[in-house]
């Protein structure tokens, strides 16, 4: 029987289902479009792999150079690894991860020395790099950090592009087997555009982790409210070591921050230790760096965890580091 309003129960159900289907399809399309364009704290496909920037044929190398002139010592240190051309080839796009964490003057050694950064940039271009960029996601305001640390003013005249953090450069990332870096915003876009990745950072005491060296430098790839990781600082540093396989790292121990790290603040926190350390194994480099701070590798729990995770070795002597002295 046709009801008075001209619609049967079957028609009602049929139309209702079609409306619901259309609503669901529209919702799904909208959600897909939104998540595809969104980064940072919401949505986005979760990446699970970042490029391995290591150069296996270069082998496990380490180099320790004594001297006060960073321009000279860094050249010598990289020579001790086999030379820059061993790592950077003609046409390479090189990314240098500096430590520009704080808006503090270079003399306080809380950030990568600008002269050192500039020299590394020049070395990469000498080896034929097509482009060199420097990047970090600082703790303080990024523009202030790159400006007041002197890194920006040194990097640009040397030919490098300075990549400041912005939301579009971050992607959600989960480290395979990671407990902390799970669905976390990581500054991945610059890494995707690079062939080689070099880490360069000062050697510092750190109030929480004991030391801030090459493994902790990768903290500057993390976005979001990363201070929550301070609750498991050794765990996060271990995961950072698993996350990043750099081409090589440089640990600047020319003026080591012996106390009140990681920010320091007084020249009296520093000691002229006059060392430049470079290596393809960040764990080994950091293990040596610990001794400069008067620590044993066993005093830094994250080193042992990194070894257990297969990220490197604390037996830096086994790498038979090249030694040199530069006046």
């Amino acid at each position, binding site marked *: 029987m046709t009801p008075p309003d001209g619609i049967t129960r079957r028609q009602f159900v049929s139309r209702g289902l079609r409306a619901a289907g259309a*609503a669901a399809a*529209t919702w799904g399309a909208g959600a897909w479009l939104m998540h595809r364009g969104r980064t940072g704290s919401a949505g986005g496909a979760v990446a699970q792999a970042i490029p391995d920037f290591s150069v296996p044929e270069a082998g496990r190398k380490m180099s320790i150079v004594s001297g006060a002139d960073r321009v000279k010592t860094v050249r010598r240190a990289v020579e001790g690894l086999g030379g820059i051309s061993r790592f950077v080839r003609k046409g390479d796009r090189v990314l240098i991860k500096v430590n520009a964490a704080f808006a503090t003057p270079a003399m306080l050694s809380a950030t990568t020395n600008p002269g050192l950064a500039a020299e590394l940039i020049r070395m990469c271009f000498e080896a034929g790099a097509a482009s060199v960029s420097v990047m970090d996601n600082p703790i303080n305001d990024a523009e202030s950090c790159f400006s007041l640390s002197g890194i920006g003013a040194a990097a640009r005249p040397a030919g490098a592009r300075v990549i400041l953090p912005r939301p579009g450069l971050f992607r959600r990332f989960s480290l395979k087997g990671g407990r902390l870096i799970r669905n976390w915003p990581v500054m991945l876009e610059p890494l995707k555009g690079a062939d080689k990745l070099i880490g360069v950072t000062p050697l510092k005491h750190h109030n929480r982790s004991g030391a801030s060296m090459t493994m902790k430098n990768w903290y500057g790839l993390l976005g979001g409210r990363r201070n929550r990781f301070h609750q498991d*600082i050794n765990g996060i540093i271990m995961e950072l070591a698993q996350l990043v396989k750099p081409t090589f790292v440089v640990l600047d121990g020319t003026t080591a921050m012996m106390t009140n790290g990681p920010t320091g603040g*007084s020249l009296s926190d520093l000691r002229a230790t006059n060392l430049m350390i470079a290596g393809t194994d960040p764990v080994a480099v950091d293990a040596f760096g610990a001794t400069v701070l008067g620590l044993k590798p066993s005093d830094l729990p994250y080193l042992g965890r990194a070894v257990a995770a297969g990220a490197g070795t604390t037996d830096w002597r086994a790498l038979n580091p090249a030694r040199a002295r530069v006046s």
Partner: protein
Amino acid sequence: MSPVTRPIGRRESLAAWLVVSLLVVVAGGVAVRQAFFSPAVAEALKAATGAAATAGSRGGADLIPRLPAALEPMSAPESFDRATLSDKINGRAELYLPAGFVGLRAQRLRMRDDRETWLEVFIYDMGGARNAFSVFSTQRREGAPALGFVEHGYRTGNAVCFVSGRYYVEVVASGTGERVTEIMEALGRALVPAGKREGEGDLGESALFPKEGQVAGSVQLIAKNAFSFGRFDDVFAAKYRDAGVTVTLFLSRRASAGEAADLAEAYRKFLLELDGKEAPAPDGTWLVDMGGSFEGAFSSDRMLAGIHQVEDPAAARKWLEKLRAAVAGGRK
């Protein structure tokens, strides 16, 4: 008469689907936005309830009302609270938070006659003079000359650090030299309320330390977790030099004699659990050999006192006795 019905046309159906789809998209967008709570709303709510200033917030009242003429603002004042302190000082926040930190205000200033040189002033509100002394003392740079305008303060080549009542203040310069030092001290004086020296009575028990042999400026107040023992809070420590050897003595006034005695015993057990071995000690005290250094302690009424990381057992016993005599003498 029956109502006239007619079939729904294709255009009408299409229009209906489009309208429904649009409504779904709008509803979905609203739902998604609501699911991600805007921090701006949180901050507005905080301001409405009169809560402390928020992370990196700019502006507000002048940070330094009596700014020395040689300086001009280089940036707006910033404010940080307990949740955001690490946004400014990263891992060092862990020094301040357990010590009663309330808020930080910071600002960069430039020298008018040398525009390449700038200073940053950090004013930490620690909630009390004792807390301010704690963070001051645990970061103090050894051997730095004292400041003349405060009881607890020093200067280094590029920094001035001091306690002013409940505040711990740091002025950090991007350069060095006489002029920079002069301006940093002028700025420091501008931050200290005229004639006010608060909190001198708050550090009373530190006066019980023996005077002889104490390394100047070495007294520190450890807010929490002294010597890696979780129950040791509010502990004064001081360094002494004795025949070329440095020893550390500690003191802590507890709420009651019972608590002091309990804590002394708990610390002894803690050390034994770490493979320490009991060693001969003066009467009324205990000594534990940690394999390379000695720890020892005693309680006397409400005072818990002891020695830390003393390498020589004879020196450990001697300093325990000296400390016990000093504490007993101080109670008279």
